[in-house]
């Protein structure tokens, strides 16, 4: 037991240090990445006089929770929340559904001019959003969709990026599985829903998250196509707190407002992160 004990201790100590290295590095990275969030949080509870103080203080002396109330009351944030959630969820669903079908078709179905079509889809990613503003607006105006949910949901629903990501993901699936499905007499829809979709769940979660965050953060498009307070989304709500006059910012209210906007995304991330991990580990066990 004697020598074994010492050996184990030494071994454990060494492996402990080795194991600690990545943690130390990760902790450092977490601090660097977490700093802006920390700063946002503490700024959101400081009175203005403490924000401008020099040298800056890490912890507020006076915690001023009224900032949140004031920020919430500066604009109809409840309405903005509803609008952001409705349009964000709807657009994300549509984006993912379209992308699923398109990517499946581009990977597993042969049809003429496939490469050219795929290239055309990708090419839409190269056109800056600013170029599409006026033509899209004119179209919406003709459809009578300006200042409606349709304007916020439909135009961004067709998006090339999720198609591209799923296309890359589907290509890595073993072709034998598809063949097996075909042999079993599965239709394309069955193959897509029963085989491809379950196998790429983590990827779908990632795509959905990116799509949702993209819609959630979008400022320019909602600003252009809506023009009444009732139809506006959260990022525009932040504009109510910014530049209150000639470049003057109420930093504490702005940060409190930023917390409103970020919290749902963080919650969503926690959930989808579970999905990632689940997807990865279930694959690993079977493999």
């Amino acid at each position, binding site marked *: 037991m004697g020598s074994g004990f010492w050996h184990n201790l030494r071994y454990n100590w060494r492996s402990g240090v080795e194991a600690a290295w990545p943690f130390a590095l990760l902790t450092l990275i977490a601090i660097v990445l977490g700093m802006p969030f920390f700063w946002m949080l503490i700024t959101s509870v400081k009175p*203005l*006089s403490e*924000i*401008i*103080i*020099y040298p*800056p203080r890490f912890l507020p002396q006076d915690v001023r929770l009224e900032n949140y109330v004031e920020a919430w009351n*500066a604009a109809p944030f409840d309405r903005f929340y509803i609008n952001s959630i409705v349009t964000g969820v709807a657009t994300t669903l549509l984006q993912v559904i379209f992308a699923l079908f398109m990517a499946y078709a581009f990977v597993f179905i042969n049809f003429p001019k496939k490469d050219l079509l795929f290239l055309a889809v990708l090419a839409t990613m190269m056109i800056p959003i*600013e*170029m599409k*503003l*006026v*033509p899209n*607006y*004119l179209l919406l*105006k*003709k459809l*009578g969709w*300006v200042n409606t949910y349709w304007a916020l949901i439909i135009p961004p629903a067709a998006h090339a990026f999720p198609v591209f990501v799923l296309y890359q993901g589907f290509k890595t699936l073993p072709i034998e599985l598809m063949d097996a499905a075909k042999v079993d007499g599965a239709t394309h829809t069955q193959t897509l829903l029963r085989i491809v979709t379950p196998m790429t769940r983590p990827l779908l979660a990632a795509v959905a998250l990116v799509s949702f965050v993209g819609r959630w953060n979008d400022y*320019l498009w909602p*600003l*252009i196509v809506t*023009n*009444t*307070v009732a139809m506006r989304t959260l990022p*525009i709500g932040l*504009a*109510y*707190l*910014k*530049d*209150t*006059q*000639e*470049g*003057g910012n*109420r*930093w504490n209210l702005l940060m409190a407002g930023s917390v409103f906007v970020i919290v749902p995304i963080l919650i969503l991330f926690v959930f989808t992160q579970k999905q990632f991990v689940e997807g990865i580990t279930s694959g690993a066990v079977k493999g």
Partner: protein
Amino acid sequence: MKNPRSLITLLAALVVMLLITAGCTAPAAPAGGEAAPSEASAPAEGGEVIELTYWHTNPGPAGDAQDELVDMFNESQDAIQVSSEFQGGYGDLATNLLTAFAAGGGPEVSQLGTFEIREFWKSGVLEDLTPYLNGDNGIDTSDWPGTMLDAGKFDDGIYWLPFNVAVPVLYYNKEAFEEAGIDGPPETWDEFFEDARKLTVKDDSGNVTRYGVAYIPGWFSWAMQSAIWSEGGELTNKDYTNITLNDPVVVEVVSKFKELLDEGAAIYPDQASGGHRGMFMNGQAAMILDSPGPFGDIMENSQGFTPMVANYPAGKAGKVYNPGGGGIVMLTVTPDDKKDAAWTFMKYMLSPESLAYYAERSGYTAFTGAAQEAAGDLLQDERYATIHAALPYLRGDFSVNMSPAVRTAFDEAWQKVFVEGADVQQALDEAQAKAEENIKDETFAP
């Protein structure tokens, strides 16, 4: 006067370009009976309520006060109902107006910053207000300050009227002045530069513990323009046939601001740390050149000293001040049968009582003589009286704002001087060449 909005301006330029390229197919402004998509349902016929839309910028009290004025207007009569909508910052508002205009829609009346007046006028977005101003239901503008009415004057028309007018304000630290043995705020720009040196405090190892002055990050050109004009210099004439960014007076003034920086008597802070206002409020800078915008914040939040206000100093050419803020416009998409109603609303917004109310709520100035009378109580406060004393010296010439070529060239030049320590003459010579070259690409090239 606003934040640097080069990106948004670029975007606006893009939109304009698109507008031009799409010009053939885009529906022209509905001239009369074209089946324009119905926005306001009620046709303006006898007895029916005329519905108007008003778009504005300025979040916070300066925006809320506009909503309140609109409510007050709606309550004051039965014939016209205005709905007021916030459209983001000045740049956002401009982008929205242009996009809506391209589709033949948009509000009848809108607030508009100073950057876009000329571009919008040239694009035919703005209605000529002269017939209304001089008509039976007109406005007496004889007591309007300085040349504010000239800002929206093109050819023979007036297309923009000032509404939220800001004047330059020098904020100073009373105790710092007493400590330095200076009797009151600087009267001339030469005194200003001398005072900045006297106000600077350094510790034993030579580190600056208090700067004489902190410059505005991003839009300091707004303050410098007042200094340049006051010393008799010009950056450009109004139609850009004579751009003079390297005029000897411009070189001299920019050099003087640079010398303060070199000596550690001034600092060009970054925006993130609260900028110049933060440095003033926490006592790190004894003076700032600003607008009435931060008045409330500064009076309320300054740490350990008494903040005071003064007018900008005078130069060889006396006091010539660069105004800030924005104005209001009527848009050409307004159907003929709504134009009178739109004007009635604009007139209400510019009435002495409205301007006085707005000044009290927002911190902008009650800029007309009659508005100052209406704001009598407010002006009892010596500080407000000081701020309003700047009004007669306003020069409502936004030509530098309105030309992206001139504005960008000048901004790049002084920032290069302040941040990278570039040679003033050389930087301004380059800016001059650049502005003359780039103005050729603008819609209103001379």
